[in-house]
């Protein structure tokens, strides 16, 4: 392939088209094709020079299907890496629906980060929603079906808001370009309504507080492999979109801090370990949103680097919990424990993921999170700094300790199962290798970030030391709470979250309103009936066969009345 043919095909399209052809390939070839396509796509990115491609005019609108710059490239690289790892992990899957939807989903997410205009972004945005829901539905349970439906409604809803925002924005500015949408001041107050709608659409997909619950609702219902795919793309596409359209938007700093904090309390008491990971994902997005909100070059680098490493270790953690679910048939902390005996490799890889997300020095999370935290310190956001430090202890709690401890250690569940299949171990091994590789040698990652990096994560030994102190004393707190019995026991239970509003409150309100309407209708009917009877009865009394006005009058009385009238009129006439 020459460079011209490479550049004439928009990135992501290779995977989408490949996915659509997949059902016609023999069953054994399909997993291999799913593995090869991300590699081809990755090579295409390496050959793509920066610039704008595929500029076309449709119905008077100028569209730029492809924009290649440093920001889109970083996300392009990591999306291809994640697609490869997830496809390797899913090598055993023979379900064509999942294979096709995974490829289309990944391809559209890649297409979206290279979209140069808002309409193209919208189209890919909606395809990611429509294709990914099949990864949830493929579980085949009633619960998965319902959760998938809620997921789809919310995701498509985000797309509808996006389109409305785009149209208003176009009306206001005459531009469809997907560039910085917020003014340089970073204030939302003066922003046009179109831009605000676009921000809300991004906020839904990025799982902002109160708009977040589709994530914890849907991801744990996805298939073993589906959750690995889902964890990587949807929310990080939203992070990309925010970094592109809303860098330096001040309100995002506060939102981001809240986002790092509130999920950790839910994660402490959650029993479904894949849901714990979903809350953890939400908390990680908060760090990125803070970085985008601060908006300096260092902070944006931090947000992007965090997204990059996060995709790998979060996929790794979802893979390890997926392997546990695959082998044992359950993912409830109450039913698990002691699995390190049966699944030592999975346990080891899970611990690497756990240490990466907790940001231990020499693991990938550390070299990314340090960028954001330095930007926070540099900008003198003291409260934000304290919030993120608490959140770091929270990450240690739910992902660093809880997930590996309750699955692989803790009390022995008695479950004896086989180790995860080889291809799953391989995928986890590569992901774990990347976590350590980036942690040891951060320079290649720093080199592809949008802005030049001078930061040295290991330049100040004291920084590494204090980070280890923070994390190990947090671990010490865990041990103390466990030994004193203060740590909350795992319980077979669910916890309410915002989804209660639309799963319980809203249906109840509708039922209540319906009952009220029916009751009101009955009362009204009865009243009308009563009124009708009264009218009929009155008419009947006067005009009915026995009524005063229908009485047959005797002739005598008529003559009498005529005589009276005559006398009266003559009196009036002569008087």
């Amino acid at each position, binding site marked *: 392939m020459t460079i011209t043919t490479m550049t004439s095909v928009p990135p992501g399209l290779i995977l989408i088209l490949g996915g659509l052809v997949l059902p016609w390939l023999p069953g054994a070839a399909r997993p291999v094709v799913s593995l090869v396509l991300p590699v081809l796509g990755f090579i295409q990115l390496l050959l793509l020079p920066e610039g704008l491609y595929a500029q076309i005019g449709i119905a008077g609108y100028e569209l730029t299907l492809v924009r290649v710059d440093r920001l889109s490239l970083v996300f392009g690289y990591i999306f291809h890496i994640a697609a490869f790892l997830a496809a390797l992990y899913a090598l055993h899957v023979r379900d064509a629906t999942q294979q096709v939807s995974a490829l289309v989903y990944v391809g559209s997410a890649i297409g979206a980060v290279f979209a140069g205009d808002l309409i193209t972004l919208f189209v890919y945005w909606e395809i990611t929603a429509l294709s990914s829901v099949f990864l949830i539905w493929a579980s085949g349970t*009633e*619960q998965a079906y*319902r959760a998938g439906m809620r997921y789809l409604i919310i995701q498509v809803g985000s797309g509808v808001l996006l389109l409305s925002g785009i149209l208003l924005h176009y009306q206001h500015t005459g531009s469809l370009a997907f560039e910085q949408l917020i003014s340089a001041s970073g204030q939302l107050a003066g922003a046009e309504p179109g831009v605000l709608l676009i921000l809300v659409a991004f906020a839904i997909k990025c799982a902002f507080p109160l708009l977040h619950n589709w994530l914890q609702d849907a991801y744990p219902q996805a298939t073993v492999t589906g959750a690995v795919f889902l964890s990587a793309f949807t929310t990080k596409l939203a992070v990309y979109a925010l970094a592109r359209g809303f860098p330096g938007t001040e309100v995002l700093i506060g939102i981001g801090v809240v986002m790092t904090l509130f999920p*950790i*309390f*839910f*994660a*402490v*008491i959650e029993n479904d370990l894949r849901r714990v990971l979903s809350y953890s994902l939400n908390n990680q997005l908060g760090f990125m949103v803070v970085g985008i909100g601060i908006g300096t070059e260092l902070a944006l680098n931090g947000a992007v680097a965090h997204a990059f490493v996060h995709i790998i270790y979060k996929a790794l953690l979802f893979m390890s919990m997926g392997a546990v679910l695959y082998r044992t048939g359950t993912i409830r902390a109450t039913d698990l*424990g002691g699995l390190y*005996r049966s699944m030592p490799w999975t346990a080891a890889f899970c611990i690497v993921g756990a240490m990466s997300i907790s940001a231990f020095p020499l693991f990938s999370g550390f070299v990314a999170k340090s960028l954001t935290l330095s930007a926070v*310190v540099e900008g003198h956001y003291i409260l934000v*700094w304290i919030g993120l*430090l*608490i959140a770091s*202890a*929270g990450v*240690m*709690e739910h992902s660093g300790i809880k997930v590996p401890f*309750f699955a692989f250690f*803790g*009390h*022995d*569940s*008695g479950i004896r199962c086989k180790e995860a299949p080889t291809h799953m171990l391989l995928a986890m091994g590569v992901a774990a290798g990347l976590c350590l590789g980036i942690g040891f040698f951060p320079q290649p990652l720093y080199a592809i970030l949008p802005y030049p990096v001078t930061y040295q994560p290991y330049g*100040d*030994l*004291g*920084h590494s*030391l*204090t*980070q*280890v*102190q*923070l994390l*190990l*004393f*947090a*671990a*010490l*707190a*865990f*041990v*103390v709470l*466990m*030994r004193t019995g*203060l*740590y*909350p*026991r*795992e*319980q*077979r*239970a*669910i*916890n*309410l*979250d915002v989804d209660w509003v639309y*799963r*319980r409150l809203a249906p109840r309100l509708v039922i209540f309103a319906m009952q009220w309407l029916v009751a009101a209708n009955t009362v009204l009917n009865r009243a009308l009936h009563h009124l009708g009877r009264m009218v009929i009865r009155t008419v009947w009394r006067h005009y009915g066969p026995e009524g005063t006005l229908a009485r047959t009058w005797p002739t005598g009385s008529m003559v009498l009345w005529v005589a009276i009238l005559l006398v009266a009129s003559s009196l009036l006439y002569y008087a």
Partner: protein
Amino acid sequence: MNKPEKHDAPTTISAAVFGWLAAVCTVLVVIEWFVHRHATYPWEGWPGFYAIFGFVAFAGIVLLGKQLRRVIRRDDDYYND
């Protein structure tokens, strides 16, 4: 692994693990005196600031989470779907 296993034993952590972790933590605080630290905020210079912060934040999160459970905990089949 031939030792008898108690399937429903409450989850605990052995005293040995506790001892080792406590020892490592002590060492971490001690070597603070020998490592130069670039402190931006004055309280970062306090001895053991990060250690105490980590311990207190972790314990606080867990104990607050426990209180949250009292409010939002429901049976597994609450939504009945």
